[in-house]
């Protein structure tokens, strides 16, 4: 394509946070009608850069040009006025508002001083039909799955008539089919001359959708790839981190005979009558990893909670190492050797305000080396935290800093280290590498592999199909609360898996 005036031009952007230079002399040009991808490790500074473009942060140095004119944004309203819209890495939605309310917030149509819901509804319906982003306008956001939420986020931006669209890791939580739908919408938008800036850790996706790719490493632009067809994912990864792209794979089978975890006929009906799990039955042997694939919201979360004893199933049993633990509390189950990596680390796995060594105790507060009888063993916990920090390469100045001071990847490493400690029998891992950069990902996979070799049984739930296929000994698909299909991970493709997950194809 010919280069005209770039629709967005960031030049010499530098942004310092206390102790960190998040962006250093970053230069990016994005063309109208293009999808411009930005890739980089966790913490490379991508989100910071986008927040600057969106007016949430102000750069310390550098200039921003939009359509050739220099701009300076004091707040997102200025950016919105300049035609910029952003879909954030973490959803920014009010759960207790309807889709409509979330979409119009800040740009409400009014009539006679009152909010004109009718006009808003029409406008949203119009946009959603045009780009195939259908959602029910009057549904509460909390009732929506991630895919729908993603659509709402994009609707928010389009509703404001944005010409420049920033998407910060929009696909992290989507299944392939949803990713395809999203990309269709992006192509549509691009066709209308919009500028799309797209951030992702999934390099295959980037290669398939991007027209240009900028690589950021440690806060600064490394290079811009003008023609994505000229690079491979591997090369991109090397540009990003200076190392090879890690591949999730298991070597030889380590499956033993002993059955470690059995779920039998797990059924869960909510008070409102919805059945979110129906007759889920599986068992996992020592040294085996069972992967569960599924579009988010099909009962995975409830299944994990039922296994962990956080939620009581309506019927069905859970056996742990041959013992019926259906009526055990979460604590008893954990004490019996059930380890747990929850899907939402900041909500369910960490005490953000507490220091690392206290976080190391969480979930293991009744076990050595954290406790001695009813008392805590602080010395033991601290020493063991030091060990985890060392062995799992948690980047932190000390074990006394609050967990909130750590970056997401480092938080996750601490959690994995904690859960792998104490020779667990069974690990329930939900999205163990979500939002984690390639290096840390590889480390986490390696730890899981090693533990598997030592006899650990793993229930692995992930939205990352490559991870699932690569890390599982067996694969099963959950759809509307039922296990609908089993696959051999050595033979299945992400596409086959994807169609089973959407209930389209019933495979072997």
């Amino acid at each position, binding site marked *: 394509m010919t280069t005209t005036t770039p629709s967005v031009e960031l030049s010499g952007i530098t942004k310092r946070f206390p102790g960190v230079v998040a962006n250093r002399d970053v230069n990016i040009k994005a063309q109208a009608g293009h999808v411009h991808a930005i890739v980089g490790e966790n913490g490379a500074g991508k989100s910071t850069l986008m927040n600057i473009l969106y007016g*949430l942060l102000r750069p310390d140095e550098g200039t921003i040009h939009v359509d050739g004119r220099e701009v300076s944004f004091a*707040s*997102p309203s200025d950016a*919105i006025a300049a035609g910029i819209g952003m879909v954030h890495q973490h959803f920014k939605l009010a759960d207790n508002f309807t889709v409509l309310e979330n979409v119009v*917030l800040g740009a409400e149509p009014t009539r006679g*001083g009152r909010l004109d*819901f*009718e006009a808003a509804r029409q406008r949203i319906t119009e946009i959603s039909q045009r780009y195939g982003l259908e959602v029910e306008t009057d549904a509460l956001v909390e009732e929506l799955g991630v895919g729908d939420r993603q659509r709402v986020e994009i609707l928010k931006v389009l509703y404001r008539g944005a010409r420049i669209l920033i998407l910060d890791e929009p696909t992290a939580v989507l299944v392939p089919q949803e990713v395809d739908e999203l990309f269709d919408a992006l192509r549509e938008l691009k066709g209308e001359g919009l500028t799309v800036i797209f951030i992702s850790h999934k390099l295959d996706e980037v290669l398939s959708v991007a027209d240009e790719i900028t690589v950021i490493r440690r806060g600064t632009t490394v290079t811009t790839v003008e023609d994505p067809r000229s690079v491979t994912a591997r090369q991109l990864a090397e540009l990003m981190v200076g190392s090879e792209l890690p591949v999730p794979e298991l070597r030889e089978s380590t499956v033993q005979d002993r059955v470690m975890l059995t779920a039998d006929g797990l059924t869960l009906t909510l008070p409102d009558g919805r059945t979110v799990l129906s007759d889920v039955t599986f068992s996992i042997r020592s040294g085996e990893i069972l992967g569960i694939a599924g579009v988010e919201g099909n009962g995975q979360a409830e299944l994990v909670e039922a296994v962990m004893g956080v939620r009581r199933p309506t019927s069905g049993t859970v056996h742990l190492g041959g013992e019926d633990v259906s009526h055990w509390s979460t604590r008893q189950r954990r004490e019996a050797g059930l380890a747990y990596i929850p899907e939402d680390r900041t909500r369910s796995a960490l005490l953000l305000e507490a220091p690392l060594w206290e976080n190391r105790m969480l979930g293991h507060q009744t076990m050595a080396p954290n406790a001695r009888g009813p008392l805590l063993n602080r010395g033991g916990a601290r020493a063991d935290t030091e060990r985890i920090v060392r062995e799992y390469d948690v980047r932190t100045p000390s074990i006394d800093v609050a967990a909130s001071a750590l970056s997401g990847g480092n938080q996750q490493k601490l959690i994995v280290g904690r859960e792998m400690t104490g020779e667990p029998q069974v690990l329930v891992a939900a999205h163990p590498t979500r939002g984690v950069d390639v290096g840390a990902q590889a480390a986490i996979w390696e730890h899981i592999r090693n533990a598997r070799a030592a006899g650990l049984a793993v229930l692995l739930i992930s939205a990352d199909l490559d991870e699932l296929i690569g890390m599982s000994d067996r694969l099963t698909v959950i759809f509307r609360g039922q296990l609908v299909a089993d696959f051999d991970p050595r033979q299945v493709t992400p596409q086959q898996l994807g169609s089973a997950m959407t209930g389209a194809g019933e495979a072997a």
Partner: protein
Amino acid sequence: MSAVTTESVAPPQGRPRLGANRRLWRTLYLLSAIMLLLSFVRVVSDAQDITSAGTFAAALGLAVPIAMAGLGGLWSERSGVVNIGLEGMMILGTWGMGWAAYQWGPWVGLLAAIAFGALGGLLHALATVTFGVDQIVSGVAINILALGLTQYLSAVAFEGVEGGGPTQSPRFDAISTVSVPGVDSLLSPIADKDWFFVSDVANLIIGLTTGVSLITVLAILLLVASFVVLWRTAFGLRLRSCGENPWAAESLGVRVYRYKYVAVVMSGVFAGIGGAYLADAANIYREGQTGGRGYIGLAAMIFGNWRPAGLASGAGLFGYIDALQLRQGGTSVHALLLAAAILLGLFAAIQLWRQRWVSGAVVGVIGAVVLWWYLVTDEVAGEIASIAPYVTTLLVLALASQRLRMPAADGQIYRRGESH
């Protein structure tokens, strides 16, 4: 584009799950059921006061300050700021009313009360929004400060003034009352007939439309207006978004600090009006006049699920029971025992029918005990009658299904530019 679907002709509101009409009907059914129960209890126990016009009028009067405090809480908490300082802001309101009304008349007094309450709100906003202080701490501090300040100011302002003193203002004239013309004369004959249900309803209407203070009228208008503003305007949507997810609001260009400031200051304004009402009803400011109504307002707001209609019913329920116990406590509260026994029995039956054996049995036994108490006594002791409003509130909350939902970011400290 053939955009308009058949569904989009639905009522003009955010969530057309329950149409406005159906909601109205449901309210009417519920109200009728309550009136039926009360009529029944009145006839059976011969406790005429439980549906007398005077009771309903008193209930309205007692509910107003609680509802205003609750409305203050609602504005504040809808913007994400917990306001335990309502009591203090209310105290400031009573003092402002007393101080200004005896000098320049009650309407100026009302304005002063509003100004004083707003100052309290401003302080709370400054501490919680600008300085990001824990909201409960700030509220508690405001309660202490308001008390000390009004005591101190009274010593300075009222000592030596005729009729005033360190604990009270001089007397002033109250804001006038209004009645809906004709209602009293039209319905009184019906009310006097003691007809089952019909007379009770007539009393209700008379009670709520006769001799109503203009502040009460204002309060009702404010409740309605708050609903319209918060749920039907862009301003309200933005304000509420600050309480649900300020980071989302921020990312859409909503000036979160500004909305929080407005909401918390308004919160002080409403609490101030509640205080003004109390002073006005007494024609005088007296220290300790609020008597914990700020806290009860807070409770009414939670009871009402952070919604105006809900908090109005919470305040109304409280006011009604309080009116009963203050007027003819012994007999009326005794009659209420029968009502309570009937309701508990119904609840127990429903629980048993749903096969919730334990809760059904527990409630059933409690109901039986209450019934027995009703049957073996003629009156309830004064000390026990006086706690009826509180016990009722607890009972209703314990029995009602708890679908309360506070604003998601309520109480959280928001700082500009720091995502959570």
